[in-house]
């Protein structure tokens, strides 16, 4: 008589069978977790992870690991089971790790198992599973529990990087004692981001890691600049994988600012200048090939502002930037991000000149020459804009079929309006405004 039946008589058998299968799931998931953690132990240099969609056909481990190329993959059939099981265990461990204020620990376990059974009321299998889980995990001592928690959080994060609980657990219980341990953790976060390059949790965790490293003095002062430059290089990968990766770019800027805040003894002025130059060049190359990456443009704007504060010659830099931008506006017609960038640069220039003027006026009355020079600069800017607008309008006038140039001209008109509102420059004469 087969127990796999569908009729009433075999109902209880069927439910019993479900319970048995549930227990098997727990064992299976534990084994897969074990395989995962063995892989992490074996291979320190994993750099890519992905979930492969496939069904379970063979009696083969779903954890696929290629040692030579350092790639890790997980077959998709096991993910729902693995995730659910790990999550249950992880929640239990989190609850147990929370210091109970007045109630004893036995009280909290009773509460948690009660709430568990209430949630799945009527489901015999899961309340039994809850008790089984409780029994298995409560005989772990504290250090065993912490290492199990870290293992589970690692598996959960790699499948679902948005799980803040897991990241927070790692913040509480991951205590790096050496630089190697920290770097291993950084590589783990890069691994997670290889699959999901745009997870904000990953970037906040990276920030926390850097702060922790510097706070605990794990990095020698002479190597701080290298350490952070290395981190900036690691950011290249998420930036490339996902267009306009806001979190990556803001993290990049945060790292840059971190270096600049160090004084002369740790990071010399030369090193800082070199760093800024390098970033400027890289950002230029990036924008050339990714025109509508507005986060990249925003980074460049902040970078230029940094350089101005640092004391490089502002005028030349900004004018050059405007020229480059103009060229691109003509090559890549219709990209709004370029126009936004232009506006930002103009504003930056105006603020810089004003500050320059104010600074100088406080020290000594400006010579008429200098004063004129600054006024002239503003005039130059205005003239530049006027030229640009005229060129675009004439182009559009001649070539009404091209959609991109149409769009470009619309953007140009918006630009003129902005200049009128924000800077009080009236350039309406140079354009046929269509309201």
């Amino acid at each position: 008589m087969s127990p796999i039946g569908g009729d009433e008589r075999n109902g209880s058998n069927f439910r019993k069978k479900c319970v048995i299968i549930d227990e098997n799931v727990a064992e299976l998931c534990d084994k897969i977790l074990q395989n995962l953690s063995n892989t992490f132990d074996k291979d320190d240099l994993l750099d890519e992870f992905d979930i492969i969609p496939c069904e379970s056909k063979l009696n083969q481990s779903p954890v696929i690991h290629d040692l030579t190329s350092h790639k890790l993959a997980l077959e998709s059939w096991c993910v729902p089971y693995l995730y659910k099981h790990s999550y249950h265990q992880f929640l239990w461990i989190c609850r147990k790790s929370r210091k109970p204020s007045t109630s004893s620990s036995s009280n909290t376990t009773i509460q948690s198992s009660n709430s568990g059974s209430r949630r799945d009321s009527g489901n015999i299998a899961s309340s039994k599973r809850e008790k089984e889980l409780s029994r298995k995990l409560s005989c772990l001592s504290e250090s065993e529990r912490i290492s199990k928690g870290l293992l589970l959080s690692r598996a959960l994060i790699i499948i679902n990087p948005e799980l803040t609980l897991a990241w927070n657990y790692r913040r509480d219980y991951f205590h790096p004692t050496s630089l190697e341990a920290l770097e291993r953790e950084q590589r783990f976060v890069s691994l997670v981001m290889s699959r999901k390059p745009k997870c904000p949790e990953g970037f906040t965790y990276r920030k926390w890691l850097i702060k922790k490293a510097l706070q605990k003095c794990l990095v020698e002062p002479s190597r701080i600049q290298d350490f952070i430059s290395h981190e900036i290089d690691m950011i290249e990968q998420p930036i490339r994988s996902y267009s306009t990766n806001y979190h990556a770019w803001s993290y990049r800027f945060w790292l840059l600012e971190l270096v600049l805040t160090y004084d002369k003894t740790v990071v010399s002025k030369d090193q800082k200048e070199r760093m800024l130059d390098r970033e400027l060049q890289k950002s230029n190359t990036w924008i050339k090939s990714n025109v509508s990456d507005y986060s990249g443009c925003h980074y460049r704007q902040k970078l230029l502002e940094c350089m101005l504060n640092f004391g490089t010659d502002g005028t030349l830099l900004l004018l050059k930037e405007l020229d480059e931008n103009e060229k691109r506006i003509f090559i890549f017609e219709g990209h709004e991000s370029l126009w936004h960038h232009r506006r930002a640069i103009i504003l930056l220039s105006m603020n810089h000149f004003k500050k320059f003027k104010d600074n100088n006026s406080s020290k000594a009355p400006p010579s008429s020459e200098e004063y004129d020079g600054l006024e002239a600069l503003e005039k130059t800017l205005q003239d530049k804009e006027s030229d640009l607008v005229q060129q675009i309008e004439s182009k559009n006038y001649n070539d009404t079929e091209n959609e991109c140039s149409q769009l470009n001209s619309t953007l140009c008109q918006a630009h003129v309006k902005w200049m009128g509102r924000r800077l009080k420059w009236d350039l309406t004469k140079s354009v046929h405004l269509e309201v």
Partner: protein
Amino acid sequence: KTRVCMEEEGLINQKLPKELLLRIFSYLDVPALCRCAQVSKPWNLLALDGSNWQKIDLFNFQTDIEGAVVENIARRSGGFLKKLSLRGCQSVGDNAMKTFSEQCPNIEVLNLEECKQITDATCISLSRNGRKLQRLDLASCSNITDESLKALSEGCPNLTHINISWCDNISEKGVGLLARGCPKLRHFIAKGRMFVDNESAIHLATQCPLLEVVNFNYAAALTDEAIQRLAQNCLNIHYLCISGCPNLTDATLLALAQYCHKLTTFEAAGCSQFTDNGFQALARNCHYLEKMDLEDCVLITDNTLTYLAAGCPRLEQLTLSHCELITDDGIRQLGMAPCAAEHLTVLELDNCPLITDASLEHLVSCHNLQRIELYDCQLITRAGIRRLRNHLPNISVHAYFAPMTPPPPVGGSRQRYCRCCVIL
């Protein structure tokens, strides 16, 4: 209209004699006793009576336990305290343990596993006061050195169970001193001590003939000679774990076969030099074998299974993971063995690549088989497992196949209607 409850009606201490009350309280655990002590004065006296505090387990509190708590308990229980477990209590230090040993001279069972702050001073105070100490667990107390064992050997002659797993600062000299001082030793557990213990085994062999349980897990330096001497002198050994000792050869098995006939549990995972010959001797002489762990004994073949089938009628658990030469034929022999029908409960065959569905066919007559592990046996199919489950409905088969029922939805079983049905 309120009814005043007369004082004499409900008080338990007026209704029952003291002995009965104490008996009732003796069933309570530490948190419950502490709560009862706060109820009223009579309850306080009853709950904190020493006879309720003979056996205390503080594992559930772990790092919350600090020295002062242990000292208070020691003072309160005094001579009554016989069993104390401080496993995982990482904040307990030497001072507390000194007070404890002075206050509780009748201590018999003491578990200090993972009390990382304990040093030799604790063992010295224990030896001075704890003459009745029988069982001591010092696993993972990394500050313990030979001085502790020396003290224990002098002060605790009644020691029967000792656990020094993962204590890297203890050397063979310490073990030798302990063996000499505690000839009544029956359980010796020393896992994870990678560079020592060859001499230790010889010391134990010569001084402690009553040994029954010996665990040398991961003592990678062990050689045949040590186990041979151990087997020769300790004829009562029924539990032996030599997993993780790759230098051992068949000579060990031959010695065990010759002397230790009472062997019931034998763990030899990772002893990759063992061959069929050794197991032939073992099976021929040790008929009481119940649990065997032969993971990674890569040289063994189906012949070993034939010998075990013939010689060990009580075999309950057998682990053959990673034994790559095992084939269906060996499992057939096992299936026909006298142990198979009633005794065999756990069989681990993971990573044995030659196993096919035929093996599962051979195991249908094992009515008590509860668990079988088949991870990475690539020739096993779902159909084979299903057939096995048909014959043995209570078995749990562990393999990498996805479970047959889909997982229940994580968000709770809310009935979902498609949009058109809702609109309709």
